[in-house]
């Protein structure tokens, strides 16, 4: 509080102004980045970034497309806290890379991600992998030590297929987010355009 007291009176107004502009911008960021959608498990949230389109489409066309969503495989499910912590970490990393246009041509999971994914394979397929075959009795750490193989080393096409570069499905039909411009504004600007066109003609 002492700092605030030290602010000369003539600065109070411009600083307030700047802070409210800042708050407005933060609200705009929330809106334009569809921040709240990231709290859900809906795969639509993942195609907020259009570079995820091929991954969405290959998942949707696969056998996993009917029974899983992105989070079932890509975030941990041991407890809620680690689920959201991992999601937040992954998500912020994605957001940063995407915003700065630094994405690679072929997206691969991060190191920590591999373990999460394999644990999730085991989580759903545990019956099959413990009673019929022994693959579920190891975890990802074992595979790093050379004791067995990770699931995807054999199931190479599950579920995103082998062909996963970010340009692999240019005309895919996925639920990309609609235009951020609200309908009423769109109509208004379209009317304006029409008027101008009419004038020209």
């Amino acid at each position, binding site marked *: 509080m002492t700092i605030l007291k030290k602010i000369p009176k003539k*600065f109070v107004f*411009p600083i307030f102004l700047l802070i409210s502009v800042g708050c407005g911008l933060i609200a705009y960021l929330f809106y*334009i980045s569809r921040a709240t959608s990231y709290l859900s498990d809906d795969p639509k949230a993942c195609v907020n970034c259009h570079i995820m389109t091929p991954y969405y489409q290959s998942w*949707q066309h*696969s056998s996993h497309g009917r029974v899983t969503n992105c989070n079932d495989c890509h975030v941990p499910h041991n407890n809620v806290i680690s689920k959201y912590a991992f999601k937040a970490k992954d998500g912020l990393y994605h957001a940063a890379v995407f915003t700065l246009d630094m994405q690679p041509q072929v997206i691969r999971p991060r190191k920590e991600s591999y373990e999460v994914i394999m644990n999730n394979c085991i989580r759903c397929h545990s019956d099959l992998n413990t009673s019929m075959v022994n693959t579920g009795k190891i975890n990802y750490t074992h595979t790093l030590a050379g004791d067995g193989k990770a699931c995807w080393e054999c199931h190479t096409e599950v579920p995103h297929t082998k062909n996963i570069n970010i340009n*692999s499905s240019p005309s895919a039909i996925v639920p*990309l987010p609609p235009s951020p411009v609200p309908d009423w504004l769109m109509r208004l600007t379209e009317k304006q355009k029409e008027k101008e066109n009419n004038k020209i003609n």
Partner: protein
Amino acid sequence: MATRKRKPVWGWILFIVVLGVVFCLGLLAASITQRRAEIATLYANKKVDINGIEARNEIWGENYPREYETWKETAKMDFRSKHMGNQEEDILASRPNMVVLWAGYLFSQDYKAPRGHMYAIEDNRNTLRTGTPSSPQDGPQPATCWTCKSPDVPRMMKELGVENFYKTKWGALGNQIVNPIGCADCHDPKTMGLVITRPALVEAFQRQGKDIRQASTQEMRSLVCAQCHVEYYFKGDGKYLTLPWDKGMSMEAMEEYYDESNFSDFTHALSKAPIIKAQHPDYEIASMGIHGQKGVSCADCHMPYKTEGAIKVSDHHLMSPLQNVANTCQTCHRDSEANLKQYVYDRQDKILETRDRVEKELVKAHVMAKYAWEHGATENQMKSSLKLIRQAQWRWDFGVASHGASFHAPVETQRILSHSLDKSLLAQIEIQRVLTSIGIKEEVPMPDLSTKAKAQSYIGLDMPVLEAKKKNWIETVVPVWVKTARDKKRLVSK
């Protein structure tokens, strides 16, 4: 006062820090907005701008070459599985009993196994069932028969109004409906999302209190097919295309719907039974089978993924999944191609076994009824037999008219056909009772139905005349239609 005067530096620091933060936030917002705007360019970076209803598939092909090229492959006629394929096959020639089952209806003249979507217009023009209309007012068919053949249909519906479209004669729109089933039938030109372009499906959903706009992407991957691959009928004198789903989508529910309005497609020429002609309830039957129940869509098996270089594309060459087991069945089922095909054939074989029995007994029921009429049976005496024949024939047609019913829902199809066999035999017993009561002791003589020609002459069709008339019509009228369409730029000239 002196100390305060020396401190404005704090104000300046805070001002500059906040200014910097706001500036960076602005940059971030601009960057996110820019990346969001890329979505628009995904759609906007097209060679041609498609506005309104564009029926010419070639124009879409400019923007979506991969989808377009695979769609063109529906012209192929190179595949035959054990039972069906993509070739035009004269079903009446291989199954002459069907001629008798449809006596009194145009299907008895001509019924062929369908070819790919590319032939929709050509085959519709060429079939004897559309007749030889000599003027825009001439029949026999209404424009309703075009409904499923072309993306020109939504264009004309918009121009004429839906009701007027159906009221028009088929021949009147011959130079308008010229492009075969294609892009605009299922796609929105702006977003390329899936859309419903045929009113009948939307109306059927509405009457059931459902909103088709709420359908998920996965459901839409079947519903766009359900615009045409469903059971339907032409309602009333306006020939308004209607799906009989008000009471449900099962065979019994649709029959109840038809019975309630006393509907029949035709009166059988031999037995005089009022017959409902089943169209092709593919969507209904598919949703009664295990694949449908587990949410597998039509496109999952009939339009699987395909890879060209580094590009993945949904294969628009619609065809039997048996032609491409590796990309269809095997994406879910880990089994050999030979085994998977065998599972399909096993189901088909067993159901077709029942179908063959049904057709034999159902034909016999019709012939027996004809014999009873000829020997003085009265309407009152025949009433219950005719009802049984109507039920038997509806069940038979429902089971066989659909493409792939015996695979899509084997248990349901077998159930329906077994009921048909049951009703056919009950009808025979009933007619026999009538025959006995009017004093006929001898067995009803059965005609020779070993070939299509014999069957058609038995029901009184003069095929050479009909065929010659059609051939002449195809050579004289169709070229005029095509020329007009080309001149008016409804067709892309090659």
